[in-house]
């Protein structure tokens, strides 16, 4: 691949991100702009921003890689990511907006009027955020490694630095523009090369991808094994070896390998002849839901079904609990707009997800050796070079590289913003902008450190784990908090800790490779099937056992969550006042005074703001007494 083009594309994306962010910064004047873009972001722009933030490296690279490795069953990932937004729309979108919560911790505190719940929620926000940031950074490292041959920590470092800088300096309004831009960039970067690739595929007499049998090398292929792997052969093959296989050194010799398992040392170069089946590697079996190259034995079918439902539950229910998703809802003007925004997001995200499977299927045909080297996530990046080649292939490859970097940057900055916000409010002694910057550095530094140690976690896989934890902790909290009157703080804490804790433990256990096979492994690798019900049950049972702890303001809070704004905003300015006070609180933390916007100059927005301000003045005296739970 032509390095110059690719590096140029990545540089352009990074610069454009910084530039648009800086432009947004210039029109971002007030504290309200900084945090919530003055709550005037209209559905179209906001939906593009949400989609831009949501479509991460897992979507851009990971889905295609998984399809290449494991076949069409992996399409459940994009379906789940999209359906997660549908469930979010149905159960929480409008009430979450109306709660006036900025982060999930804010929601927990507002609904349950308890500091303890807030602290536990913050713990999980940070945990999930880090789990999700890790694959973004690793993906960036992989991309830059493929493109330029640089060590894999360089890409991670670039993303970590850009994101930290952007978050420490930027604000919600500028981020909104950046994210919206990046959605369209990502869509273009995936769509245009896909069209060319499909044309090239037609020109090649439309070879079919086989997913029921091992992939086959179409031409003589030389593969360099970077990490030692154990390969499994169903039938004896002859290949050229330059390196060490099964403890014997060879120098560009033809070797016949018999059926069974063979160990290939790192640095070995294997030459496969055209028509040879791609051997399966041990490392890739068992981590995914299905195992494409082996006929499925009877009990494997049960595993597969279980794993598929584990994936479905985790993604359908986990989306609502992702820290960067919740923050975005706050920028909608009202609950109704939040709903409509989510509808547009569904359309945008769904349109995007039509594309990665194309890359997965083509990768299976034209780049099967990626399954052997463990770099399946790179399928998207190498395809143009394989199918088209020449300057055209280089240019398309560069476009894809730029899109991939947009994916890392947008998701990582959204996550960092959310995690840094929580760290700053709940962990650090809050003292102004300086501490927020420290929080931003902490938010990125931890996953960056881990990314250096823990390598070779497939991007989409790691993201799936974050979803599982989120589905078992925040999904029960949000759903019960919004729809159930009898939720109590002890119940919420117990549910968070039991459900989320169980999922997290299972995730960590599989990562360290404790149960290596069988049902124990499957149960722990896909915890959502049992951990989500566990979280719900614990929350309900403990709440029912502690009826005296139902927060006194529950009825008022639920009324605010569900009443349309035109009714509830006039309820003594309760909702807006709460939000404004929260903004005041943050403004003080950031060493700024809240400035009442000069909104009268621009029509609609000015009107809304003016009314809110007026109400705030009217409302302050009695609203202070009305909410004893408020600090």
């Amino acid at each position: 691949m032509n390095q110059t083009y690719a590096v140029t594309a990545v540089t352009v994306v990074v610069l454009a991100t910084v530039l648009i962010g800086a432009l947004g910064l210039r029109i971002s004047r007030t504290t309200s702009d900084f945090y919530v873009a003055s709550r005037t972001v209209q559905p179209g722009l906001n939906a593009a921003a949400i989609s831009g933030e949501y479509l991460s490296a897992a979507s851009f690279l990971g889905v295609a890689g998984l399809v290449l490795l494991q076949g069409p069953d992996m399409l459940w990932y994009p379906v789940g990511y999209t359906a997660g937004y549908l469930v979010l729309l149905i159960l929480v979108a409008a009430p979450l907006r109306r709660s006036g919560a900025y982060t999930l911790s804010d929601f927990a505190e507002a609904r349950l009027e308890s500091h303890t719940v807030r602290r536990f929620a913050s713990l999980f926000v940070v945990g999930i955020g880090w789990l999700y940031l890790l694959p973004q950074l690793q993906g960036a490292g992989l991309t830059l490694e493929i493109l330029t041959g640089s060590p894999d920590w360089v890409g991670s470092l670039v993303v970590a630095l850009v994101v930290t800088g952007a978050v420490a300096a930027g604000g919600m309004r500028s981020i909104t523009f950046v994210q919206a831009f990046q959605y369209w960039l990502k869509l273009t970067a995936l769509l245009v090369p896909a069209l060319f690739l499909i044309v090239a595929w037609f020109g090649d007499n439309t070879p079919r991808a086989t997913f029921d049998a091992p992939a086959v090398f179409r031409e003589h292929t030389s593969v360099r094994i970077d990490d030692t792997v154990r390969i499994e052969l169903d039938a004896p093959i002859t290949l050229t070896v330059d390196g060490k296989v099964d403890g014997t050194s060879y120098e560009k010799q033809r070797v016949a390998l018999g059926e069974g398992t063979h160990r290939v040392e790192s640095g070995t170069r294997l030459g496969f002849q055209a028509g040879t089946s791609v051997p399966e590697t041990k490392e890739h079996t068992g981590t995914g839901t299905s195992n494409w190259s082996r006929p499925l034995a009877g009990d494997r079918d049960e595993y597969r079904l279980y794993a598929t439902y584990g994936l479905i539950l985790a993604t359908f229910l986990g989306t609502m609990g992702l820290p960067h998703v919740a923050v975005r809802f706050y920028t909608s003007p009202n609950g109704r707009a939040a709903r409509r925004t989510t509808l547009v997001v569904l359309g945008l995200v769904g349109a995007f997800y039509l594309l990665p499977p194309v890359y997965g299927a083509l990768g299976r045909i034209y780049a099967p050796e990626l399954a052997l080297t463990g770099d399946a996530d790179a399928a998207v990046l190498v395809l143009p070079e394989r199918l088209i080649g020449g300057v055209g292939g280089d240019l398309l490859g560069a476009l894809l590289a730029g899109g991939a970097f947009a994916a890392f940057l947008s998701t990582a900055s959204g996550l960092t913003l959310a995690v840094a916000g929580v760290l700053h409010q709940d962990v650090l002694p809050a003292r102004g902008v300086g501490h927020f910057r420290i929080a931003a550095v902490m938010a990125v530094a931890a996953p960056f450190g881990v990314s250096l140690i823990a390598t070779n976690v497939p991007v989409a896989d790691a993201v799936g784990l974050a979803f599982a934890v989120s589905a078992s902790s925040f999904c029960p909290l949000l759903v019960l908090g919004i729809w159930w009157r009898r939720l109590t703080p002890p119940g919420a804490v117990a549910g968070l800790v039991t459900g989320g804790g169980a999922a997290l433990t299972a995730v960590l256990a599989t990562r360290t490779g404790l149960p290596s096979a069988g049902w124990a492994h499957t149960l722990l690798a896909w915890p959502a099937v049992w951990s989500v019900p566990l979280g719900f049950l614990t929350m309900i049972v403990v709440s029912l056992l502690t009826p005296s702890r139902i927060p006194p303001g529950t009825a008022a809070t639920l009324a605010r969550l569900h009443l349309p704004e035109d009714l509830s905003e006039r309820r003594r300015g309760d909702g807006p006042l709460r939000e404004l006070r929260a903004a005041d609180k943050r403004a003080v933390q950031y060493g700024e005074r809240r400035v009442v916007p000069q909104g009268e100059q621009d029509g609609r927005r000015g009107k809304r703001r003016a009314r809110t301000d007026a109400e705030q003045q009217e409302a302050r005296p009695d609203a202070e007494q009305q909410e004893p739970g408020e600090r």
Partner: protein
Amino acid sequence: MPAAPDGPRRETVTGVPRQARRPLGHTAARSEIDEQTTIGTTYVRSLMRSQLKAGLTALGVLILFVGTLPLLFMLPESVTGSEVSPTLWVWLSLGVGVYPVMLLIAHWYVRRAERNERDFTGLVEGR
């Protein structure tokens, strides 16, 4: 972030624009809600119930059309006994088919939820 001001920033205090006050008066039902009486709580409960019903219906349709797919994919293998899974069917339904279905469900839900809210507002404002 805007640079920290040198001194205290000037704070503009706006008056109450006349047109911003809605002419709609307080109806009986609204003050019930405001004062959180039993009747008021009942009003809110009724809205919550209708919204929850709409939500659960949408969720049910999602489970019916999408959630059962893994089972459907397993079916032909056990019914026909053939080892070949209908791969093309998987590709079409998961790669393309489910997205329009989800979008339709979402569209229906948004319209339904907004209608519930309109009905409720009408009820409360006595229109």
